[in-house]
């Protein structure tokens, strides 16, 4: 009995490594960064690294939230609305100083949580199709963003804009610390009952239900937490742009899902995770920089982004098939 067991362990390890989209996207990122560093002499400078983290952070946070929902086999389009809403709230409702900044954080997170809760009720309890119902909440929240601020404008408090885009102690970018915190929180969450249940529900909802998992509640919390992540994304975006734009979220809709796909989260649920999605977001933003530094016209950026998206999924699927093939 001993040999098969150790065999199984090796196989599961192989499967985890090869079928692991996070690892693949990390490799892609490293490759891109090498190209980037070889073309740009100052790629490793303090400013360049800080820029890299700052630019990737809003999309990474949005993708982190979106991947929670994708893990449950759902789609959450409300990301566009929530990012815009928290951006305009930051640009109009928040004053100067650390206290106000925290208040602003609380306000946008509450807004995101509320939208997420509505999504969760619609999808988990009323059992509407997730694409359709989050499409509706996305439109409603974009409308609310327009009500707060009807045209681009407003100013994000300097305190928020400066602190979040700065480097802590002059070395580590604050954005990197935020992303690290999210990763740590996720690694903890994944080990809770909810985290385990999240994967179970995504892999097979009926079986998870039969195993005693309260599937509705698990899905509900996934949407709630996703909403909070979108709000954080909007908060970070506000710090970066220092201004408000009710349409700020529009470009996030496609890019968030692109990041999730590149990050190896399976759209049929139950596989992948937050870290991969965040790396996927970082890859997308780095890709833009690399293409720019290679002198490719910005017109064609989209073509490369699309091709990378498809390739990432194909590579993940192939290695997964290879990994699971060894099981036979």
């Amino acid at each position, binding site marked *: 009995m001993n040999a098969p067991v150790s065999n199984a362990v090796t196989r599961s390890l192989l499967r985890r490594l090869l079928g692991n989209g996070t690892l693949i996207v990390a490799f892609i990122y490293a490759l891109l960064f090498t190209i980037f560093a070889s073309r740009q002499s100052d790629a490793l400078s303090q400013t360049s690294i800080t820029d890299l983290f700052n630019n990737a952070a809003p999309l990474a946070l949005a993708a982190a939230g979106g991947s929670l929902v994708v893990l449950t*086999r*759902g*789609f959450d*389009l409300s990301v566009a609305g929530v990012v815009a809403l928290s951006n305009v709230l930051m640009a109009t409702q928040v004053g100067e100083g650390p206290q106000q900044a925290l208040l602003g954080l609380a306000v946008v997170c509450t807004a995101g949580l509320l939208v997420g809760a509505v999504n969760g009720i*619609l*999808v988990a309890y*009323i*059992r*509407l*199709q*997730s*694409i*359709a*119902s989050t*499409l*509706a*909440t*996305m*439109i*409603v*929240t*974009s*409308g*609310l*963003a*327009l*009500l*707060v601020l*009807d045209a681009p404008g407003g100013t994000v408090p300097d305190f928020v804009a400066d602190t979040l885009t700065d480097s802590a102690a002059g070395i580590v970018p604050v954005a990197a610390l935020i992303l690290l915190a999210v990763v740590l929180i996720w690694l903890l969450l994944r080990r809770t009952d909810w985290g385990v249940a999240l994967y179970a529900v995504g892999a*097979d909802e*009926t079986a998870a239900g039969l195993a005693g998992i309260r599937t509705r509640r698990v899905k509900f919390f996934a949407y709630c937490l996703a909403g909070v992540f979108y709000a954080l994304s909007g908060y970070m975006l506000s710090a970066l742009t220092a201004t408000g734009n*009710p349409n700020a979220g529009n470009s996030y809709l*496609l890019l968030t*899902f*692109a990041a999730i*796909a590149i990050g190896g989260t*399976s*759209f*049929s649920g139950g596989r992948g995770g937050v870290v991969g999605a965040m790396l996927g977001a970082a890859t997308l933003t780095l890709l833009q920089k690399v293409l720019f530094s290679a002198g490719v*016209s910005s*017109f*064609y*950026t*989209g*073509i*490369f*982004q*699309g*091709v990378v*998206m*498809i390739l990432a*999924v*194909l590579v993940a*699927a192939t290695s997964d098939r290879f990994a699971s093939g060894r099981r036979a």
Partner: protein
Amino acid sequence: MSPPADTRGLRRAGLGSDVWNAIALFGLTALLIIASRWISSGFGGWEQTKAILVLSSFVVVVAFGQQLVILTGGLDLSIASVMTIGGVLTFNFVGASPTALIWGVPLILLVTAAIGGLNGIGVVWLRVPPFIMTLAMGIIVYGATLGITGGTPRGQASPALSALFTASVLDVPLVIYFMLAITICGSVVQLGTGFGRRLYAVGTNPAAAYIAGLPVRWLTFLTYAISGASAGLAGILMFGYAGGATLTMGQAYQLPSIAAVVVGGTSILGGSGLYIGAVGGALLLTTFSTVISSLGIAEGWRTVIYGLVILLALLVLREELYLWAGQLVARPVPLRQPGEPAAKPDA
């Protein structure tokens, strides 16, 4: 997402929930147009009805392909870009010339069908999830359009295409006849041909359809190609309507095309729904946005109301309701038992 309830029994008994849904949507649209008389005296008449029908023609055309794709359990997110490239190509290469129109339009439809076909190849043979494949294709096509045009599409308006919108027969703009023809042809293809009926089998259970000997892969591939062509056609129509093409002309139609199909009663899990329902959904949503935009309120409120209407439609137009309504007029049939396997296995 719960598996769709089994309505096959009801369909056999005469009136399926799909038909009820479509009837309800057309009824609501008519009611809304009549009710809008109270908003403005110029409303609720034939002029406004014509305007709404003309505006909804784009979504009606796009929804044909989108509905077929969703019917087989897929999704087409490349529609916005394909519409745009359809319009831009017509603007650039056909322009005002009537002879160019004759060979140009079929060629452009072929190009857009090929783009859709690439989606199909990715989804069917490379097994890329539809959501990702079509999303990526949309980004790629948009980039290509940007590159082809260098950022600004240039060309000439086509008098022949514009005539579809300006010329009328019996006080009805030509494009409305065209839309009617598409609706009828689409419904005939869906319900009256083997191709259409096989798509229901593919959407309900691809594995079973494959075992039953259906060319599941080719059928799925074809739905994506058709979706590309119908998005291209909608782009050509939009170009005719606007007399020009922009790089963002299709963007406003991506989500409405899905909303119309879903509000029209097609399950996003595949296997059930009718094109005529999607047409009803397109009309209802277009009517709503037209009426709302005439209310003279802030854009924010209009957007909020539009979103709430979609939500309301989703909440109200649910399968259970039609099952119940169907049971009132048809012989009751047992629903799927809890122990039975779900209709659609994991892809």
